[in-house]
């Protein structure tokens, strides 16, 4: 096995050193005023993976190393907040998009050893009621967004061979459900009437759409072999509710 090295020091040697030395080795060659966190994380990842390969247990001092890395990150964030916290939060919110599942980060406090436990308080009935109002607001925004997506769908009136594509797809899905009411798996070839190349391509596209929407599941064991179609159970069906609603809306 090729011996892995970080900053010219072998992993085995690095594993024996003090945590501070480990950190110095990991950051060697970096500008102390401008540490590249991604590079550092990559070096650390290699280091930890190597420890696992040697079947060592990751010792407690590595937890300390992690905490120091986190401190570097926290301080970087703290500096960012001082620049323009509101702007930064706005940017993050915009990037995340789904504000429902996004919580504004809490500004890091002065890092002190030993670290004090931050108590997680219980939630009050007022919090619960407030959360309910928020959930309703988000839910309304979500349904508005979904209905706008349906309205803006550029393929809503798309036709293929004189037929609306969505109607064709819905009709195919109904046909698949009928077939699968009597059996568990359906062969793609059973969906063909004429069997010529043009029909195969058309049907294949429709099947792909249904698979993408989560309404059916396709499996092909080998290239160019038969495609086996099944209907997913419970969760996957629920996941595709939006698609069903969109189909209904049309």
């Amino acid at each position, binding site marked *: 096995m090729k011996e892995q090295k970080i900053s010219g020091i072998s992993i085995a040697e690095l594993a024996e050193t003090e945590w501070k030395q480990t950190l110095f080795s990991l950051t060697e060659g970096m500008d102390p005023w401008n540490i590249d966190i991604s590079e550092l994380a990559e070096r650390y990842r290699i280091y930890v993976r190597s420890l696992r390969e040697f079947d060592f247990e990751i010792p407690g001092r590595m937890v300390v190393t992690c905490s120091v890395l986190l401190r570097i990150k926290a301080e970087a964030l703290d500096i960012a907040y001082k620049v323009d916290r509101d702007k930064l939060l706005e940017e993050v919110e915009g990037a995340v998009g789904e504000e*429902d599942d996004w919580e504004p980060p*809490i500004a890091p406090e002065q890092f002190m050893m030993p670290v004090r436990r*931050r108590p997680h*308080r219980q*939630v009050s009935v*007022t*919090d619960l009621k407030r959360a309910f109002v928020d959930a309703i607001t988000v*839910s309304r925004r979500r349904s508005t967004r979904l209905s706008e997506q349906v309205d803006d769908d550029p393929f809503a009136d798309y036709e293929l061979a004189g037929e609306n594509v969505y109607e064709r797809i819905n009709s195919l899905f109904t046909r698949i459900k009928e077939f699968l009411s009597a059996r568990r798996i359906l062969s793609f070839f059973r969906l063909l009437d004429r069997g010529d190349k043009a029909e195969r391509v058309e049907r294949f596209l429709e099947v792909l759409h249904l698979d993408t929407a989560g309404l059916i599941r396709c499996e092909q064991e080998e290239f160019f072999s038969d495609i086996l179609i099944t209907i997913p159970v*419970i969760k996957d069906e629920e996941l595709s*509710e939006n698609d069903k609603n969109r189909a209904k809306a049309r």
Partner: protein
Amino acid sequence: MIKTGRKRDKSLLEAALFLAAKPLQRKELAKIIGAKSHRYQYVEELLSDLADELSAAERGIELQQIEKSYFLQVKEEYLDAVAYLAPYQDISRPVLRTLAMIACNSPITQSEIVRARGNKCYKHVEQLLNRNLIRAEKHGRTLMLHVTEEFLRYFGLQNINELQFSEMEKE
């Protein structure tokens, strides 16, 4: 002055419960005060004394028990006034929103919740089930979700009707 004997043990339990980030089991508490495993009864007596002291009207916290685990919490009536001091909640905001929707419409199917809250709420439901705040029973191809006794205990409610979500909110 350093306390000895029973007083010291009770103080130790109080300190442990104050500091612990999660509910502590009777076994762990016994270990902290150096009691042997067969002396669980002694631990329970101390906890009972502590609970009595904290239940006095002038105290702001109380001792709670879930099965065989114990923890300290702020009394419900004071929680809103001091909540901002501890920004970390033990139920995250997205999960709490899912819980609120379940509580308001309980019982409600998982598919309805997914329709309103999106696919991420499968994870929320899983977390809430793990915390025993809701229970699920099979309902066709989906699950019917109900709030539990533990939910009522957590929020200090006698029954779900005490929540009184307004009709407008229930839309």
